[in-house]
Each structure stands twice: as structure tokens, then as C-alpha cells.
């Protein structure tokens, strides 16, 4: 399979059939051009790939920040290529607690990175992913592969966790990382609610599907075979892994009791595993 060389200059984006325009607040869109899939991130760069992900060409915009470029290439770009190759990546943070992986889903601002960093800073967990969690099927279970080695935190979260920060931008903090994949114990959808203490409730049915589907990183959105595959992949995941909604008040003071709650969840999951 050949990959047509990218055009450059004023012609670079001519004749692209955009199939996913940016959502409000995003600067990302996907299209097709000359048989290749094209993904463009405003301010970062462009990726062109063959439909099966076997050939990929990445072009960063000249002068882009080095850390940001590395994060983009190893994160978002890698996730899209993984999808073309049939692998699952969720827009989520993930940690391993006592060898069991928890994946945290949620909209931007839901506290995914902060919760993962809090657990790792306490020494209760090792980081698997800050922003993009890679999930694989292994024998009879799902595992989360370690894919990222740093937390990216906003100023208030960094300060609350003891990392001094005066930067308005997200701060990169080296994490306690896990070296090997961890069995996926649960998917946890993060929710801020007016409640006195953090709690977990089962997330089932189409609501569980909607949560995972919203986090599922897809390259092509107009290919029926790929959509069909994605439906079955999500169904298989949720058939073997429990999902929960984590309710907690929007306050950094809730991080400690939330961590305790999640450690109890992991112990209960381990007990269930042993008795089932």
C-alpha cells in the first residue's frame, strides 16, 4: 500500500474531504485526501496515514514547543494510529493500585489527571496514563499498558499536591510509573456532584456505552466496518470489566477521601475476583 506524499504550501489542505469538523473549543479535524486519512491539529501539525495504519507520516508545525510536540506525537497521534491498527485507546487517565488498573473517564476538566496524580503522589498507585490509556485484550482479561510517564497538571492541582507552580500552562511532573501492563479492574466515570462525601455507583447499560464511546479515540468516523468493530470492542470491554460513576464535590480537599474510596474499590474487586 502506498501513501501519497503530503502536499505542501497553499495546496496542503486542498481537496480534503473533512469528515469530522472541530467540536466547539477544539482545534482538531479529520478528513480524507488522495486515499489517505488526514488528521490536523491547529497549532501542532498534520498526520497522514494509510487506512490500515501501516504507513504514517507526521508533520509538526515548525517551531512548536518541544515538550508539546513530544506529547502530541506519543499521545494523540499514536492513539489515532492505534485505532487504525485495531487497538483501543481511551481519552482517560489510568493508574495501577496493588497491580489492578483503574481507568478514569470524563470530560475535559473532570479531574482525570489530578485524580491520577493524587493517587500516585500518595504512593498508593503507579501511573499508567495521564491522558490516553492504551487497553489490550490479553488471554481472558483486558490490561492497560503503561503509556505515559508524566502528569500534566494545572497550577491549582499542582500546588495542592505539593508541586509548586506559578505557570498558567499545564505543568509536567515526572510520575511514579508502572513498568508492566496491569489487569483492568474497573472503568470509572468522573462526575462532580453536590455531595458530602465521595461515592461510587454502578454504571450500566447504554450509559456505560456512552461513557466509553465518548472517550474512545477514533481516526475514521465515516467507515461502517470500523464503526461496527468499535461497537463490538466496547461491548466486549464492558462485558468483562465493571464500570462505575464516581461522585464527589468539586474541591481539591476531596482528593484524599476519594483516593481511600478507590483503594477500597480495588480491594473489593480483588476479593470478587478471588471468589468468582
Amino acid at each position, binding site marked *: 500500500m502506498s501513501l501519497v506524499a503530503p502536499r505542501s504550501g497553499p495546496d496542503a489542505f486542498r481537496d480534503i474531504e473533512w469528515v469530522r469538523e472541530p467540536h466547539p473549543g477544539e482545534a482538531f479535524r479529520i478528513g480524507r485526501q488522495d486515499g489517505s486519512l488526514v488528521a490536523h491539529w491547529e497549532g501542532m501539525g498534520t498526520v497522514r496515514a494509510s487506512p490500515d495504519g501501516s504507513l504514517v507520516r507526521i508533520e509538526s508545525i515548525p517551531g512548536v514547543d518541544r515538550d508539546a510536540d513530544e506529547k502530541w506525537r506519543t499521545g494523540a497521534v499514536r492513539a489515532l494510529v492505534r485505532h487504525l491498527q485495531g487497538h483501543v485507546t481511551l481519552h482517560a487517565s489510568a493508574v495501577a493500585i496493588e497491580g489492578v488498573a483503574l481507568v478514569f473517564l470524563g470530560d475535559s476538566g473532570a479531574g482525570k489527571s489530578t485524580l491520577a496524580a493524587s493517587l500516585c503522589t500518595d504512593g498508593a498507585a503507579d501511573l499508567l496514563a495521564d491522558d490516553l490509556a492504551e487497553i489490550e485484550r490479553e488471554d481472558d482479561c483486558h490490561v492497560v499498558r503503561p503509556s505515559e510517564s508524566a502528569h500534566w497538571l494545572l497550577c491549582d492541582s499542582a500546588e495542592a499536591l505539593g508541586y509548586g507552580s506559578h505557570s498558567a500552562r499545564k505543568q509536567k511532573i515526572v510520575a511514579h510509573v508502572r513498568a508492566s501492563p496491569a489487569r483492568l479492574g474497573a472503568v470509572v466515570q468522573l462526575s462532580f456532584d453536590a455531595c458530602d462525601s465521595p461515592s461510587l455507583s454502578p454504571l*450500566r*447499560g447504554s450509559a*456505560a*456505552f456512552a461513557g466509553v464511546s465518548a472517550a474512545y479515540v477514533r481516526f475514521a468516523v465515516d467507515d*461502517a466496518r470500523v464503526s461496527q468493530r468499535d461497537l463490538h470492542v466496547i*461491548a466486549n470491554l464492558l462485558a468483562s470489566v465493571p464500570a462505575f460513576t464516581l461522585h464527589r464535590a468539586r474541591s481539591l480537599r476531596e482528593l484524599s477521601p476519594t483516593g481511600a474510596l478507590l483503594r477500597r474499590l480495588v480491594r473489593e474487586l480483588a476479593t470478587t475476583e478471588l471468589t468468582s
Partner: protein
Amino acid sequence: MTPVPLDARFHVARDVQSRRFHEEVVVLDLRRGEYFSLNEVGARVWDALSSGATLREVIETLAVDYDTSVTQLSVDVLAVVEDLLRRELVVQGD
């Protein structure tokens, strides 16, 4: 919409896929790339229609299972079936 006869049978439209998620079903229309979710009763209707039951059989079975009257359940089941037909997720006929 033409009234749906009680002895009608249905089949899932081409290019439509579904998967069960606990008590509910998610239906994917591959032609439009749209997902639909069916609640517990809708999922029972979907499963029965997909397996070749007539509308009458679906209503009678669910009326027993949910311990409710056929008359009451007919309204709910017909609403689900008409919605599925309108969205071309199922097609009337064997």
C-alpha cells in the same frame, strides 16, 4: 404511519448492528453512523422482534413477564416498534 398489524413479523435492517449492554441494547445504524439506545423494555422488544416473534407474541410475552395488561403494554410496544420502523432500524416482513 400505517397501523402495524399484530401478526406482523420483522427483521433487523441491513447495515444495522446491535449489542446488549446489561439490560439495555445499543443499536448502530451503519448507514448513518448513528447510535440508538433501547431501555430494558425496548431491549426485550428488540430481542423478540429479531428472533422472529410477531407483534402479538411480543406483547403477550411481555405482559406476562411484567405482570401488566395487554392493553397497557400494547401502547408501549407499538410506540417502540413504530419508532424502530420510522428510523428504518427494523423492516416489516419475514
